[in-house]
């Protein structure tokens, strides 16, 4: 049964039709998007390896198999747009505006060095390692700082959007949330507010079928989390979260809608969490999730889906597609040779920087409770 389901899904991808926005993407865009998929994947597997080697402490929340959601949603944004990533979106911090140059420090995304310094808990992290993992952000780079409180930044997203409009801007604010987090009261309050005021807020729901150890049918009574939009009278779109081009189309449709003043929308991206909730949960997840479900959920690796499309459209040869074979492999199976050298080099620069960055001085624990000077 699992294989038939996987086959059906495969067929769906093969039948992919370009949408309004993806139809305009060039061959170079396709290549760049594929490269970014590799980059997000490499971030994940490399951190798992670093942790296994004992070079890293702290929990990792893997975005393995969900990379198309990040790449596809970020690709169509303008530099001035804001994003609000959460625990499973770590690569988003350095992939925002990455089109402006991976190593360009003036672009509107963080440097990979900064993000690695955060992961390693070092002073060169944007938050000087005061809080862990994804709890960073940057006002100047238009990245809202997350907390642990799920859905807690959507109200702030609405506030940022409101303020931007008040100042005559036309930026869009894109927030990310797991499907489980849509059950938070504040999710409802914030989107309702955004809808009433037609605020340019796009909420991406990363539906990876699980919220920690809880399956979707215990989180929401309908199949599509996008239907949450109906109650607010706003658009609710569903994207194939394994297909970076479909995510790109749906998110950009919502972004354009928002930018033109029509208000917020929700874009649900259907995907699947490859591993445990965090790396601490891998062993238990193997018990609470049926093996067949996990295999079916991982059957459509976003890297493979993109390669297939590119080969079909003649943007890549079969041979080229086989060169860097990261798809379908877990962190323990994959090696640096499975990734383009650029990708490996880029992240390695970040990690080297992080390792050489010092810990913050202890006294900083007592600083910045209040602003002291006026």
């Amino acid at each position, binding site marked *: 049964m699992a294989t038939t389901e996987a086959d059906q899904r495969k067929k769906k991808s093969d039948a992919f039709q370009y949408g309004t926005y993806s139809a305009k993407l060039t061959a170079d865009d396709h290549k760049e998007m594929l490269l970014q998929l590799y980059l997000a994947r490499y971030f994940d597997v490399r951190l798992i390896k670093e942790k296994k080697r004992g070079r890293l402490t702290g929990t990792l929340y893997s975005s393995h198999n969900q990379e198309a959601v990040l790449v596809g949603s970020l690709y169509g944004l303008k530099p001035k747009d804001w994003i609000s990533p959460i625990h499973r979106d770590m690569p988003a911090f350095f992939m925002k505006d990455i089109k402006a140059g991976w190593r360009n420090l003036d672009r509107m995304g963080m440097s990979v060095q900064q993000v690695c310094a955060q992961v390693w808990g070092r002073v060169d992290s944007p938050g000087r390692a*005061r809080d862990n993992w994804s709890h960073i952000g940057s006002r100047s780079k238009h990245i809202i700082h997350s907390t642990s409180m799920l859905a807690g930044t959507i109200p702030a997203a609405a506030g940022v959007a409101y303020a931007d409009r008040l100042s005559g801007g036309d930026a869009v604010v894109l927030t990310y949330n797991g499907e489980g987090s849509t059950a938070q009261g504040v999710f409802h309050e914030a989107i309702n507010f955004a809808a009433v005021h037609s605020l340019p807020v796009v909420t991406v729901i990363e539906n990876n079928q699980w919220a920690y150890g809880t399956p979707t049918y215990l989180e929401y009574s309908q199949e599509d989390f996008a239907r949450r939009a109906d109650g607010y009278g706003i658009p609710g779109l569903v994207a194939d979260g394994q297909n970076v081009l479909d995510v790109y189309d749906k998110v950009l449709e919502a972004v354009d809608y928002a930018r033109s003043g029509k208000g917020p929308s929700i874009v649900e991206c259907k995907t699947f969490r490859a591993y445990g909730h965090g790396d601490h949960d891998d062993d238990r997840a193997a018990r609470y999730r049926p093996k067949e479900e996990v295999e079916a959920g991982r059957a459509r690796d976003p890297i493979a889906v993109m390669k297939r499309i590119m080969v079909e459209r003649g943007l890549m040869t079969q041979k080229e597609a086989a060169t860097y074979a990261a798809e379908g492999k877990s962190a323990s199976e994959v090696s640096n040779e499975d990734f383009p050298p650029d990708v490996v080099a880029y992240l390695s620069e970040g990690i080297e920087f992080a390792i050489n960055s010092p810990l913050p001085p202890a006294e900083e624990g007592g600083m910045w409770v209040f602003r002291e000077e006026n």
Partner: protein
Amino acid sequence: MAVAEQVSSKKNYLTALKEAVFEEMQRNPDMVCIGEDIGFLGGAFGVTEGLKAMYGPERVIDAPISEAAIVGVACGMCLNGKTTLVEMQFIDFISCGFDQIVNMTATYHYRTAGEVNMPMVIRGPAGGYGGGALYHSQMNEAWFANSPGLKIVCPSTPRDAKGLLKSALRDPNPVMVYEMKELYRQNKIAEEVPEGDAALVPIGQASIRREGDDVTLVTYGNNVYHCLAAADNLAEEGFSAEVLDIRTLVPLDEATIIESLKKTNRLVVVNEAPRTCGFAGEVLARMSEEAFEYLDAPPARVTRLDTPVPWVKPLELYVLPSVEKITDAALRVCKF
């Protein structure tokens, strides 16, 4: 039974909690457990592992990520005759259910002139020292101590963990149980834990962890162990410290503290929460009202700085109470 996983008869804090939950579920068919990931997963830390398999999905509810609804639904069940055990995955997330606790649940008995009881227990992993950062390290008990109608306990040993949780589940009032997650799996403190009614530890009774004559260190939770270590340091300096674990914050066992002060005449109070309006301040205030005549020196408190709990180790230790900070404060009080 799923809880008997340790070979030795000594049980750790986590196993003791598990035993309390399983025993009370067995004893009370009207008891319902509700929380995030408590069923299939068995809870983030495994306190309810095996519970759903044993008692079924009606009595062990895997709730959506909705803390306000979780507390509020539990409140409704209490209103309609059930006993409820609410798990907060981390006590930090309780802020998302705050209104349903302080306005809905805590006041119910009061505003109905005693018509309605709220046999609800809210338990969750709390406390710092584990590198959990701002939102996985909190001790926010003072928010609730300042909300009349809620009892608050904070066990520091496996026996107390089991005994207080069991008592909480038999109490007709809402009780908050602050569990020390850094103690969950500490083998050093594993001990024999009684079964059934013999395990009950009454709410509202302090416990003397170490006897002494020169100064009383009043504390609870993680800092019990820091105070015991500080007492060793003080002994080297020639001072004998009494370590008093209050175990229950509300209602506070003032009598035991006063008895101790009659003997030692010196007081240091330690809590992990921030200083301003932390529970240590409450203890000091009460003792200055009730036991002023027994004090030979101004009392002191050791608390977290008035900051959040930062992530990386040097910063975390900078803001939290430590053995050294407690020793120093006690020495100052002893040498006054």
